[in-house]
C-alpha cells in the first residue's frame, strides 16, 4: 500500500477490528440477553372455567376453602402452579357469592379463615382481612383479590373464570 493521508494501516486495522468486534458482540449479546430475559415476557395464554366444587357443599355464611392446580407442559418439563381461595355464600341465591383469592396482597403467603377472629389471618406478617377481604390491620397495601366471574352449571358445580395475570 502506498502512503495515504486518509488513514494509516494501523488505524485501518484498529477500526476494522473494532467494527467486527462490535458486530460480533451484538450478534452474541442479543441472543444471550434475549434468552435470559424471555421468561419475563412469556405469556401463558391461560384462561379457563375452573370447577371448584359443588355449590351445595359450601355452607352459607361461612367462608370455605378451595384450591386448584394449573399444569403447564413445556417439553419434558411439567410445571404445576397451585391457586386457592375461599367461597362465601351470602344466601341461597347462587348469585350472592363472594369468592376471594387466598393469596395475601402483601408478600403472597396464603391467608386462612379464622372463625374466632371473624377474619382472614395471614401467618407471615400478622395481617388481618375482613370477611369481605378488606385490610383490617397489618402491612398489606390492598384488599384480597376477588374472582368476580363465576357461574353454576346444570350439575350444580360452581365454576370460576380463571385468567392468569
Amino acid at each position, binding site marked *: 500500500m502506498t502512503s495515504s493521508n486518509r488513514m494509516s494501516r494501523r488505524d485501518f486495522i484498529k477500526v476494522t477490528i473494532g467494527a467486527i468486534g462490535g458486530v460480533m458482540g451484538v450478534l452474541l449479546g442479543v441472543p444471550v440477553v434475549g434468552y435470559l430475559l424471555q421468561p*419475563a415476557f412469556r405469556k401463558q395464554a391461560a384462561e379457563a372455567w375452573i370447577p371448584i366444587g359443588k355449590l351445595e357443599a359450601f355452607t352459607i355464611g361461612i367462608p370455605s376453602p378451595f384450591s386448584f392446580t394449573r399444569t403447564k407442559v413445556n417439553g419434558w418439563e411439567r410445571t404445576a402452579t397451585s391457586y386457592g381461595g375461599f367461597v362465601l355464600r351470602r344466601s341461597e341465591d347462587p348469585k350472592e357469592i363472594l369468592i376471594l383469592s387466598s393469596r395475601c396482597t402483601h408478600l403472597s403467603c396464603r391467608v386462612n379463615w379464622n372463625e374466632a377472629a371473624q377474619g382472614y389471618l395471614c401467618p407471615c*406478617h400478622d395481617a388481618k382481612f375482613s370477611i369481605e377481604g378488606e385490610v383490617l390491620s397489618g402491612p398489606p397495601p390492598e384488599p384480597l383479590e376477588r374472582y368476580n366471574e363465576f357461574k353454576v352449571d346444570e350439575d350444580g358445580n360452581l365454576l370460576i373464570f380463571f385468567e392468569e395475570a
Partner: protein
Amino acid sequence: MTEEGNPAPAPRSMFDRMRERLVPDGLPEDDRGRIRMVVNSLVLHLHPAKVPERTLRWTYSWGLGGLSAVLMMLLGVTGIILLNNYTPAVPQAYLDILELRSNVWFGELIRNLHHWSANLLIIVAVLHLVRVFLTGAYRPPRELNWLIGAGMLVLVLAANFTGYLLPWDQLAFWAITVGTSILSYVPLAGEWLSRLALGGPEVGGNTLLNFYSMHISFIPLLIFALMSYHFWRVRKDGGLTMPRGLDEAEPPISERVTTIPHLVRKELVFALAWIAALLVFAMLVPAPLEDIANPDVSPNPAKAPWYFLGLQELLLHFHPLVAGIILPGLAALAVFMLPFFDTNPASVGVYFRSRRGRSLTFLSAGLALVLTPLWVLLDEYLLNWSAWLPGWPALLSNGLIPLAVLLLPLFLLDEWLVRSFKADTEERVLFIAGFVFTAFLILTAVGIFFRGPGMGLYWPWELPVAGH
C-alpha cells in the same frame, strides 16, 4: 535421563523423579529458599515474600478474610459432590434430599457441612467487613478492594438465598415466595422483575431451575473471579494496613519476616482448626429440613432465612417498597460510597480511629441497643399509622411518613454532634454506622428469637419449636 558421554548418575527411584518434577527445589532450608518458593508458586505468590511482623497479629485482622476463603473452598467441594445426588425438579429435589439423608454414605454429613459452612460464611464475611470498617482500611488506596469485597458479600447472600430454595421444603418455598414478592414492589419494573426471577407467576419448577443454575454456576464463578482479584489487590495496595494502637502517633516501623513460615504456618493452623470445628459441628447438628413444599399452606410463622430476618422485621412495620427496597438500597449505597467520602489517611490502622471515636461508637451502639427494642414495642402495641391516616396511600401512611419520623432523631443527633462537639466526617461516620448496624443486629435478633406464630412477639422460651 542419562545422556551419551556423561557418566551415568546414581540411579534414582521413580518416586524421587516424580518429587523432583513436582517440587524442583525441594522444601526450602534457608530464607532465600523460602522467598524463592513463595515467588515461584502459583498459590503462594498471592503473598509477598516478606511481610511486616505487626500485620500478622491475630488481634488485628482476626483471620476473617482467610476464613471466608477457607469456607468458600469447603462450599465448593461439598457443593460439587452434592450435585451427584440432586435433581433440580419438583418434587424430585425434595425426594433427593431425603435419599441423601438416609441412604447415601455420608450424605447427611456432606449436606450439613455445606449448610453450616454457608451460614458461617455470612457471619464471617460480615465480621470481616466490620473489621475493615473499624480500622479505616477502606480508605485510599484501598477503595477498589472495599468495593470488590462489598460486591462479594452481595454475591454470598445471593448464593445463600438461591441455595435456600433447593431442598424444596416448606421453609424453602415460603421464604423464597416472600423474598421474591418484594421484587414486585420495585417501581415500574416490579411485575417484570419478579417474573424474571421466578420464571413464571409463582414459585414453581421454573424458579427451582433458575435458582439452581444461578447457584451452581454464575454466582460461584463470579465469586471465585472476584476473590482472586481481591487477594491480588491486597498485595498491590501494599499489603494489610499497618496496625497501630490508639496512643501511637506514627505508623510504627515493623520488622519484616519471611512469609514462610511466619504467615503460612498461621494460615494453615487457623484453617485446619476451623475445618475441624466445622466437621464436629456438622456431625452433631443436622441442617433443617421440613415437610415437602406445599403451595396451599403457609407455615406459621413463615420466616425468611435468619440473615434476612432483620429485613423481615422491617417488613412488619413498613410498606414493602420502603422496607424491602428503599432502606436496603440506601444502606448498600452508603457502603459502596463510603471510601469516597471518608478518606482521612491519618487514622488508618487504628481501631475506632481515636479515643473519642471509640466513645462515640459505643455511645451510638448503646443508643441503638435501647431505642430499637423500644421502637419495636411501640410499633407493635401503640403505633398504627394506617389507622391514624385513613384514606392516605399505604406508601405514605405505612411507609414514608413513619420512616421520616424514625430518621429525624438520627439527623438531630448527628447535628448535635457537629454543633456541640465539632465532630468531623470520620466521627460522624462511626456514629451513624454504629447506630444503624447495631439497630439492624437487634432487629435480626428480634426476628430470630422473639417472633412466633402470627409474627407476634414472644419470649424466646415460649416459642414453639419450629416444624411442630
